[in-house]
């Protein structure tokens, strides 16, 4: 799992974005290769969403360059981004809970048959494809007519990802896919992310959770206050280090030092008091 000489699909060089005089993102460089997962980690407000929005075409970057398939691009709308094969699966998933699985899968890209005023949905075909695509990724849903709202969070996440892959995504951006899920469900989603990688997609996996990132990632980028604070291949980093960096690294050490000086002045229950303060 060392550095992989796969072709680069998407690369950012010194990309920055400012809103007025606020620099949300500064000097971010990032590469996404075919068949690899690039994990982007960071605390709230670190600039993760700004980064996704630039790649997804919702915002334009104000500095640096973005290259997709060897071509310098400046996206002006999500359509541009989609047109280049970059699919974003947002946290809200863009699924309609009351609609059935197959209807959701093909929503906006319905397969039709017949002519003129009698053009109608090719239901059998859409159900078949939905079933196949889900099976390919190891999700078995016995009844494709079941509404999406009745599924678990992990299954929904998987359907949104399967949909993006089926409709021709080359790069998949996953915005915190495991954030709202339990342990089991996160496992299902992570397995699925790995399958997307094995299918040859380049994946950008945005997450808070270094454990999840380390399970699947080939490359790790940590954002801190709009800058890249760590950029490392899997071979060069351990989970401990990643967790520590993610938690704030140097800042955390300073904090622990500060806390220990506070707690030493309050007496022998220092450790307990200290950890409580940390959580608060």
């Amino acid at each position: 799992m060392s550095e992989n000489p796969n072709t680069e699909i998407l690369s950012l060089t010194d990309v920055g974005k400012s809103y007025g005089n606020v620099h949300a993102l500064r000097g971010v460089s990032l590469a996404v290769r075919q068949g690899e997962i690039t994990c982007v980690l960071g605390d709230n407000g670190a600039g993760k969403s700004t980064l996704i929005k630039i790649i997804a075409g919702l915002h334009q970057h104000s500095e640096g360059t973005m290259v997709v398939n060897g071509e310098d691009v400046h996206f002006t709308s999500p359509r541009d981004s989609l047109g280049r094969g970059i699919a974003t699966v947002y946290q809200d998933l863009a699924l309609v809970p009351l609609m059935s699985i197959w209807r959701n899968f093909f929503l906006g890209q319905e397969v039709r048959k017949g002519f003129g005023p009698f053009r109608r949905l090719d239901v059998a075909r859409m159900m078949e494809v939905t079933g196949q695509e889900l099976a390919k990724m190891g999700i078995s849903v016995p009844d494709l007519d079941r509404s999406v709202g009745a599924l678990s969070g992990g299954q929904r996440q998987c359907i949104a990802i399967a949909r993006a892959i089926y409709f021709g995504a080359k790069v998949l951006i996953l915005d915190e896919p495991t954030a709202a899920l339990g342990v089991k469900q996160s496992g299902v989603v992570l397995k699925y992310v790995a399958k997307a990688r094995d299918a040859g997609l380049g994946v950008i996996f945005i997450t808070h959770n270094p454990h999840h990132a380390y399970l699947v990632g080939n490359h790790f980028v940590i954002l801190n206050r709009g800058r890249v604070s760590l950029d490392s291949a899997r071979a060069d980093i351990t989970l401990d280090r990643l967790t520590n960096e993610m938690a704030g690294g140097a800042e955390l050490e300073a904090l622990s030092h500060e806390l220990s000086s506070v707690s030493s002045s309050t007496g022998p229950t220092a450790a307990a008091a200290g950890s409580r303060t940390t959580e608060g």
Partner: protein
Amino acid sequence: MSQVQSTPTPPATHAGTPAVSGDDRVGKRSLLSSLFSRPEIGSLIGALGLLVLFLVVAPTLRSGASFSTVLYTSSTIGIMAVAVALLMIGGEFDLSAGVAVTTAALTAATTAYQLRLNIWVGVLLALVAALAIGAFNGWLFIRTGLPSFIITLGSFFMLTGLNLGVTKVLSGGVSSPRIADMDGFESARSVFASSVGVGPFNLRITVIYWIALVAVATWLLLRTRVGNWIFAVGGDPAAARAVGVPVKAVKIGLFMAVGFTGWLVGMHLLFNFNTVQSGEGIGNELLYIVAAVVGGCLMTGGYGSAIGAAIGAFIYAIVTQGVVYAGWSADWNKLFLGAMLVIATIVNLVVKNQAAKK
């Protein structure tokens, strides 16, 4: 934060455990529970129950003629309820639907009469006006982002005022000019207000339009792309937009569909009675909504059916006519109607929750 102090060992074993693949807790749904997950099933049971009740207590209802009357009443509410149901599935209301019917009828009668035109020209102008009212509601809704409840409440009052005001100015009274002797009246009457004898039944043509509209709307909803979009814009407009559904166009189209059915019912009233009272139609918008909700449409959008709305309209008709045929005072109608709405909604909710659990 506590993770930092006790960093767990790399969870390699943890990851190796196969996570759930193919949840064995999810079984096939039985045919019965699939059936019960249809939106219209609650109202169908209710309609059959009421039908049996009134056939027992009101023997005169058993004749073909009175049953035809029930169907006729159903159709005048039901034609509108189809479009109102589609709009409700699309997530919106139209409180101006009742008076828009009167506006369409007044437009046809007044323009043809004042300009000395063939009545068919008036009919076409009324269609344009009805579609324009729908488009206006939809456009204003999209532009302002206000709830459709407020927008159409506004157009409800505006149209009510226009109907009364313009009619008073032009004719000095409260009803449209009589149009029975105008060119084209007979042919228009045969299109909008004729009857067909089928066996013991004397079917009004509106019943045929009603059934046809329900069939078309059902096909549209379940088997076309537009239908898929209607469910999507009602269920989750943001998600629909994200996958490329033209949310604005769909919503405006739905308001215009209500305009279209309003025109159809308006033309029927005009050619059936040969004149229209300018104050008519107020309150009917609520009957359409009742029919749609009793038929299983969710007030919040994204769920419902055209067949359900038809059954809802039938329930309304069987109650109002049944009370009359049973020899009870019609004063009780509204009480029945209100109770029916509440009971039907509760039944729908229970049935839907049960179906979701199975």
